């Protein structure tokens, strides 16, 4: 395998989801080397064949990976809605039911860890937004004491639920990003 072939292969690998690249990138390159050395297939023919494979397979794998991540997010959101609903009380029947449904939907799918990269700074933004919502809710609650009006009560409830959801989702995603350790991608 010459340097150019390696470079082209590395570029092609970018079509695949980051999870697959990290876990199997080296093995995928080794497979090419084996086919070249043991089967005597020319490097450029192998690369053309790999390109065809990538065009067909990579979009499907990317879709599957994003779908899996989505189900993790749905599960976390459901759990957060459930907790928030229980904390708020009987008035929060809708969030409780929605939370239970979301957790069930997520549990029916086999989940996998969130991708270590690819979310950018979004998790931190979500976390900060969630904490901001909770802060406003607490300030609102402390200011009004027990005399929350109807509008203020609705605002307090909404901020509490949204804040809890965003904090949990952002927190979990941030921790997952930082905790992820994987071999380098090829």
């Amino acid at each position, binding site marked *: 395998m010459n340097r150019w072939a390696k470079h082209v292969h590395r570029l092609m690998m970018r079509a*695949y989801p980051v*999870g*697959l690249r990290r*876990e*199997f990138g*080296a*093995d*995928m*390159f*080794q*497979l*090419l080397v*084996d*086919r070249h050395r*043991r089967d005597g297939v020319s490097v450029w023919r192998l690369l053309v*064949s*790999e390109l*065809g*494979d*990538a065009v*067909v*397979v*990579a979009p*499907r*794998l990317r879709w*599957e990976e994003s779908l899996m991540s989505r189900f993790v997010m749905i599960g976390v959101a459901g759990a957060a809605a459930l907790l928030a609903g229980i904390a708020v009380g009987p008035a929060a029947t809708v969030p409780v039911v929605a939370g239970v449904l979301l957790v069930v939907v997520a549990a029916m799918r*086999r989940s*996998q860890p969130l991708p270590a990269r690819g979310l950018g700074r979004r998790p931190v933004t979500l976390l900060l937004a969630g904490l901001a919502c909770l802060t406003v809710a607490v300030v609102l609650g402390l200011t009004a004491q027990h005399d929350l009006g109807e509008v203020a009560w609705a605002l307090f409830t909404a901020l509490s639920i949204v804040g809890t959801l965003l904090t949990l989702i952002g927190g979990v995603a941030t921790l997952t990003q930082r905790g992820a350790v994987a071999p380098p991608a090829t």
Partner: protein
Amino acid sequence: MPVPASVMYILVALAAGEKHGYAIMRDVAEVSGGVVQMGSGTLYGSIKRMLDQGLIEEADERPDPALDDQRRRYYRLTDRGRRVGAAEHDRIAALAESARVRRLAVFGPGVS
């Protein structure tokens, strides 16, 4: 539910024993009479999914460490993978039998 063809080919390849990626690819080509040539994306995409689903697992020991590259990862069937493979075999066999009974295999297109 029918198993995807690529997954079934890998199950069949590993039914004969532990194999690494290249050996699986060679076995699939051989079993299919050269019709199926798995690219690296198809192969490792399927392997990843099968690992996630518990159909296969990475083998800790190399069949013969002295003869092979230690960096290679070997895979083997799990009990679940063997059961799924057997169920898919039965499904395909039943389909083939139905085709035979209805004379699809005998009187196909171009056969008088």
